[in-house]
């Protein structure tokens, strides 16, 4: 599991690569918690490098979505490979998130809504 963290025009992008499961989810949770704790309110999660996600990982993003709503922050997910997209779909998570195909399209959301 590798987690990349970058900032594009004030938008924080977190890109977890590899498997997002029981073993690795605590690392992902810690990474997203740290950026939100440090004040990030415009956040993109780029799943392009993710292999799959299990419910342990879904929990992390559900908690993040609730927190961003409470903080009046903005959260966009992008780059979902088919295994990740299917699990989000089966879990009924699609309507809970703003989801874009690519990171560029995700970042554009912040420009048009600013």
């Amino acid at each position, binding site marked *: 599991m590798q987690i990349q963290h970058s900032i594009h025009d004030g938008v924080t992008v977190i890109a977890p690569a590899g498997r997002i499961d029981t073993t690795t989810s605590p690392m992902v949770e810690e990474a997203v918690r740290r950026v939100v704790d440090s004040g990030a309110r415009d956040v993109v999660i780029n799943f392009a490098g993710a292999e799959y996600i*299990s*419910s342990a990982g879904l929990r992390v993003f*559900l908690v993040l979505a609730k927190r961003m709503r409470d903080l009046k922050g903005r959260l966009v997910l992008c780059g979902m490979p*088919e295994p990740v997209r299917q699990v989000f779909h089966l879990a009924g998570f699609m309507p809970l998130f703003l989801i874009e195909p690519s990171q560029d399209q995700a970042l554009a959301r912040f420009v048009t809504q600013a």
Partner: protein
Amino acid sequence: MSAGRHAHIPIAGTAASQAAGMLDAFCAAEQLPDEVAWRLRVVLDEIVANVVAYANHGPGATMDVWFSRDDDLVKISVADDGPAFDPLARPLPNVTLPLEQRQVGGLGIALVRSLMDDVQYERTTRNILTIRKRIEPGGGDGEAGGHADPAQHS
């Protein structure tokens, strides 16, 4: 029919990664298509996490995992010695609730049921959960293995 594999795994924090390692070796040996392999990985993660969370276990407790393949049918069984616990009897989570009321409890077993062709719980002196997944002909990322993502990546 291939030879099955069996692992005896301590029920501890690293059980999920140990089981995942066994599954990786099984998927590689059987050359399972990616479409089948990722489903098995998600499902085994859910089942093992469930055992770790719910099995009433003391120090030294273990679980058993069996992997086998018979033609186009992959089978995985997980057994633990905890008190009777039928995950299939749990109510499915309501996946239509708004964000504030959404919970992850029960989502794991719901995913197991959705991602596999067959899930079976059996109580002997142990809990035994068995899942089966059929390998579709021409699987992998081809047309037979579900719809390819039409999204273009630039």
